């Protein structure tokens, strides 16, 4: 005895059999498809993917469909290429490319050299770094070309020698500019200009100075060597000029 469910199963089975039969494909349509595939294989449709230079840039599949199609790249079914829409639109952010090897090596070398030069690591000796510890490490303690084991005493010293803020003041209401030069700024006046208080005409600046004894002077209007009236003075034996002295303690 057949119930309604058995009848339905029989009908569904017939539908499935009918659908399994492929519809006839027109011969001209097949020819068009094969022509496009052949053209794609020869690379004639590359313009459809934009103006990227294929010598520098290589596409990789960005979707699962493309990845599945990739193994067939050598067959007549065509090589895996992203659709123009993907290449230009939705694939914009997911598209990946690589630079050809010589170009990549060149760019990497140039970037590395530029980075080192900008950081100053290549031309500068470690001892030129401000506050660098000069370590007379024995040869056995040398690690590589530049890395040395720094004893704990050196790190203690580095902490004790951390720079402190010192205010320098000069009352020069008629000056157009005031800078300070000293051993704490390598005698470079452009590094440390003083700012004028418009109401009082007093020039002042805060400078970072390592603890210890330091000598300095003000340069008024870029040329007039001026001593600090609030600081002791000393005569420099090398150049014979008078200089101001500051004693800086630790924080």
């Amino acid at each position, binding site marked *: 005895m057949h119930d309604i469910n058995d009848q339905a199963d029989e009908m569904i089975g017939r539908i499935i059999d009918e659908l399994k039969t492929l519809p006839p494909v027109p011969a001209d349509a097949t020819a068009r498809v094969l022509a496009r595939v052949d053209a794609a294989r020869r690379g004639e449709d590359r313009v459809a993917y934009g103006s990227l230079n294929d010598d520098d840039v290589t596409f990789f599949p960005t979707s699962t469909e493309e990845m599945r199609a990739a193994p067939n790249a050598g067959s007549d079914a065509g090589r895996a290429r992203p659709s123009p829409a993907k290449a230009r639109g939705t694939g914009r952010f997911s598209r990946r490319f690589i630079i050809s090897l010589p170009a990549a090596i060149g760019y990497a070398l*140039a*970037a590395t050299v530029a980075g080192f*030069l900008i950081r100053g690591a290549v031309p500068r000796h470690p001892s030129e770094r401000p506050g660098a510890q000069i370590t007379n490490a024995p040869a056995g303690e040398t690690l590589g070309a530049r890395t040395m084991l720094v004893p704990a005493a*050196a790190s203690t*010293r580095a902490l004790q020698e951390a720079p402190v803020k010192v205010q320098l003041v000069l009352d020069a209401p008629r000056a157009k500019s005031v800078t300070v*030069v000293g*051993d704490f700024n390598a005698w470079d006046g452009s590094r440390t200009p003083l700012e004028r208080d418009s109401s009082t005409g007093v020039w002042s600046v805060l400078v970072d100075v390592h603890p210890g004894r330091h000598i300095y002077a003000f340069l008024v209007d870029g040329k007039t060597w001026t001593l600090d009236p609030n600081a002791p003075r000393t005569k420099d034996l*090398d150049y014979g000029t008078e200089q101001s002295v500051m004693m800086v303690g630790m924080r």
Partner: protein
Amino acid sequence: MRADLFMRWMRWTLSVAVLAAARAASGQASQGLDSATAAAIAPIVERARAEKLPVTALYAKAREGQVQRVPVARIEAAVRTLADRMRTANEALAPDASEQELHAAADAIKSGVGPETLRAMRQAGGDGSLAVPIGVLTQLIARGVPVERASMEVVSLLKKGAVARNFIALEESVRQDVLAGRRPDESLDLRLKGIVPNLPQSATTDATGLNASSPRRPR
């Protein structure tokens, strides 16, 4: 198209970076000196660099002369003398002197302090920085305290555990005294009497009658 633009931008950026780096390296080499001064001191700097001495101080000394419009020959002599002082200081403060200590020691040597004093200070000062004690020694000498006397007292203070603030206080007191008309060595005697008893390594007698010394305080 987009990739072409990117590649052009990348090439342009790298070109600019390399040019800027080359200019910066060139600027670092001359350290803001005019070409004649830079050339005059170049051999001195190279030798110091090979000996791992801090060459920034040498450039600074040259710039100091340049700011004061000193002739190149005198600048070269000053830089050479400074390099010699730093060499002496480096040996005296071995095995590991900081850059600040070397600067201070070179100044002290210029004031007449001998390397044996620097060695004694290193031994007495332990792991602490000597930049301030050496600087105070230099300033005491500049104020008129005889070199031997000032050297002896500073080493003695270090042995007793004096720290940077003790030295700064001593220098300030002597300065005030000298401004008030007191003789520098007299002032030093007077002010040491106020500082030494408070130092940790000074012999003190506690209630039990035994000598007690507290551990060294960190500087």
